[in-house]
């Protein structure tokens, strides 16, 4: 797509079509006429496919492997090799009832006349934005994304388009994630200060877990990191994709009592579950963007909150709108009112899609 998309009538030149565009002299089909929000998710009408559908769909384009975006039971699934591997690890080899269609970043396919390609989103291993081109107009679905460095995945790439669809998980100016290195220092300092306590860190099992492990290694922590059973398969998968997580081991009834002064990673839901009782003198740690809000951390009984997020913070969101340069912004899940307002202040056309079902909490 060329820069011409943003001059002239404001739209791309393309072959004459059954134009349903309401602008005079306009020959492209605006995405609002071929993208629809349905209860299953976002639907591309001419392509006959959904993006990150919440219910089994005939054709699905999946941006990344988190459970609220990647579900089992679709017919044809288009996603990156990594995302498909994650889906197989979570749902079994037969999660797609017809076929998997692995894509590399930048590679385009035609789905019923719509040109679809995936581009790095920097969120977790394999995460992508989905670019759709139809009748001369392009729309990019960012999925979940961040702009910070993350050695466990390919960094976000701005993709020029007519409509940019963005998440808004942390879309308030109070959300500014501190550097990851500082948060890791907090954890390692606490480990020195409370060497008799087991440091139990609540992290999302996919992405956050592995990113934290790599960051601890980079900060010089070489000891075995102990894992809740839910993390193991995904850590093996990251390892198979060449990401070195250092030595780790599963928490078992036998070794649990010996984990004083060690770091144990578990899903956030296990922090206050009975599972954690067998660990010695637990110090509760959680790594999430939400930890910035004190009341929220305290309410969850977290003693050491680490502000670590795989989503864009406020500054990153605004930076991204400006980097992508799309004249029109659609906002999916999160604090859409603030981001819509800020985008309008930047002179962009912006609206909220009010998608439901994508989780706020499972960060």
């Amino acid at each position, binding site marked *: 797509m060329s820069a011409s998309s943003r001059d002239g009538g404001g739209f791309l030149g393309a072959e004459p079509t059954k134009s349903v565009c309401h602008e005079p002299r306009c020959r492209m089909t605006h995405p609002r006429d071929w993208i629809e929000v349905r209860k299953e998710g976002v639907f591309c009408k001419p392509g006959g496919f959904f993006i990150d559908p919440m219910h089994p769909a005939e054709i699905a384009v999946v941006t990344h492997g988190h459970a609220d975006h990647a579900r089992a039971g679709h017919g044809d699934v288009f996603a990156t090799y990594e995302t498909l591997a994650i889906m197989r690890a979570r749902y079994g080899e037969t999660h797609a009832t017809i076929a998997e269609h692995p894509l590399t970043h930048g590679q385009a396919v035609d789905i019923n006349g719509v040109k679809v390609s995936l581009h790095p989103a920097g969120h977790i291993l394999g995460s992508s934005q989905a670019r759709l081109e139809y009748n001369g107009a392009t729309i990019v679905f960012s999925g979940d994304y961040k702009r910070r*460095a993350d050695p466990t995945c390919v960094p976000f790439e701005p993709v020029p388009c007519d409509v940019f669809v963005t998440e808004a998980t942390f879309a308030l100016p109070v959300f500014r*994630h501190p550097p*990851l*290195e500082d948060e890791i220092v907090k954890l390692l300092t606490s480990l020195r200060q409370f060497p008799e306590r087991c440091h139990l860190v609540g992290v999302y099992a996919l992405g956050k877990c592995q990113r934290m492990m790599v960051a601890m290694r980079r900060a010089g922590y070489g000891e075995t990191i102990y894992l809740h059973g839910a993390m193991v398969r995904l850590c093996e998968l990251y390892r198979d994709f060449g990401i070195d997580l250092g030595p780790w081991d599963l928490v078992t009834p036998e070794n649990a009592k010996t984990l004083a002064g060690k770091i144990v990673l578990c899903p956030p839901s296990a922090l*206050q579950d009975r599972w954690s009782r067998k660990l010695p003198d637990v110090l509760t740690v959680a790594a999430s963007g939400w930890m910035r809000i004190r009341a929220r951390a305290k309410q969850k*009984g*977290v003693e050491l909150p680490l502000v670590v997020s795989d989503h864009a913070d406020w500054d990153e969101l605004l930076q991204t709108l400006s980097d992508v340069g799309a004249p029109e912004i659609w906002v999916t899940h999160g604090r859409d009112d603030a981001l819509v307002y800020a985008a309008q202040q930047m002179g962009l056309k912006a609206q909220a899609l009010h998608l439901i079902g994508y989780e706020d909490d499972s960060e």
Partner: protein
Amino acid sequence: MRAFSRLLERLYFEPATSGKERLLLDYFATTPDPDRGFAVAIIADSLSLPNFKRGMVLELIRARTDPHLLAMSQDYVGELSETVAHLWPSALKERSVSANEDSTAEASEGRLPPLSDVVHNLRHKPKADLPAYVADLLDCMTSPERWALLKIGTGSLRIGVSARLLKQVLAKYGNQPVEQVETLWHGVDPPYEDLFAWLEGRADAPVVHEKLTYTPVMLAHPLEEKDHRLILPETYAAEWKYDGIRVQVVHSAIGRALFTRTADDISHTFPDVLEHLNFHAVLDGELLVLRGDDLGTFNDLQQRLGRKSPSSKLIKEYPAGIIAYDLLMLEGEDVRSQPYAARRALLQAALEHHQPAGIRMSPDLRYKDFAELESFRGSVDNASVIEGVMLKRRDSAYVAGRPTGPWYKWKINPKLVDAVLMYAQRGSGKRSSFYSDFTFGLWKGNELLPIGKAYFGFTDAELKELDKWVRHNTLQSFGPVREVRKDLVLEVAFDAVHRSTRHKSGYALRFPRISRIRWDKPAQDADRMDALEGLLT
């Protein structure tokens, strides 16, 4: 300033007292004077910064933020200091959006002035220069640092460290008795360099004189069955134990003060009580609402507690007074070494001579033998504000702390009802994975009405069993609270029951605790509301 901000951050989230203690000890050991002393002053809320106000902070942030985004943010975060801390437009690296962040945590170390400089400037800068000074500081801070700075200014840290705990930690730091720290406390000023020098063994204890100081109080042990034979009328004096709060009233040449048992100065809350003491003395007594001869209930007193500056209407409606039971100083003379009987005689004479309004002598309870004392205790009715009997050796000196023998407290027998468990909530700290806070109710018709909540009174084994029961009998969850099947009966003990308009059931229990789990009893056989009505008188 950085170290102080880190300390506040950890204290805020640390639920265990032992953990808070460790964090403070580490901080004292690694932070130089005068910073650590100012930190103590800030935590103890004994630093006055009259020009650093909420309004100033609001003006600063309004000048820097879009009003809609500010409103949305504050709506989301809730608290102003935290909203501003997060929202402040900062030039720091936390804003950077570069894909290769190789800046290290240490790069910014030392960019902030020491805490003592900050405090000095906040106190002494002309009011007109203060906003610019605070803004400059905020500019070069991270969000937790900004929060710490704003909290210094607006007070009320809410980090769960009381003045009492702080003194205990200081005592532990210097391996000194806490009573001595408490005695010195009101005679020393921030940044407490003389106090730290003494605690570290580098100097003698600071000399404290001519100040309004708190004198550590003498405490009683519960009377156990084996002690009953010791209680003879010629050895032990008896008096009622009142259900108010224990206080120390001080009046000397330099002023007046009212302290709680834990040495908190509550003078501002009870200006009427300070007025009452019209001679130079230190009294030990019970703070109650006193209307002429009527003693108010603890509920009455609660209307007055925690109000920093009570209105004259409130004071008139709930006038506070003292039931005095001991005398520590009289006209500048320390009488603590005199026997209890002699101190009481001095107290009695002073009260008769000065006739203070609103201060009354706690009457002597004369008894001829233990059996009679027992019958006095048994006759206490619920409506009164008596929670038991105090027994004090007639020949005992007034000693700080809780020595065994001279003083006993003998509380009245608790009242009991069989209630049904209705809701359970997870506890905190070590109990955070257990359902250990329980709401229970009594039957009214076919309906259960909640009458109270308790979170103690069982063994660890029972706690585990209860936790299991809750998890298997949950009907629905509301956030951290679970509603359970109305199947389990708990025997609940409490000291008294009062009518209450704040509770749906119409009653409020005093000191409820779970005394037994009645696994055996069917829920429909639990007590009905009438049981409480019967216990009212």
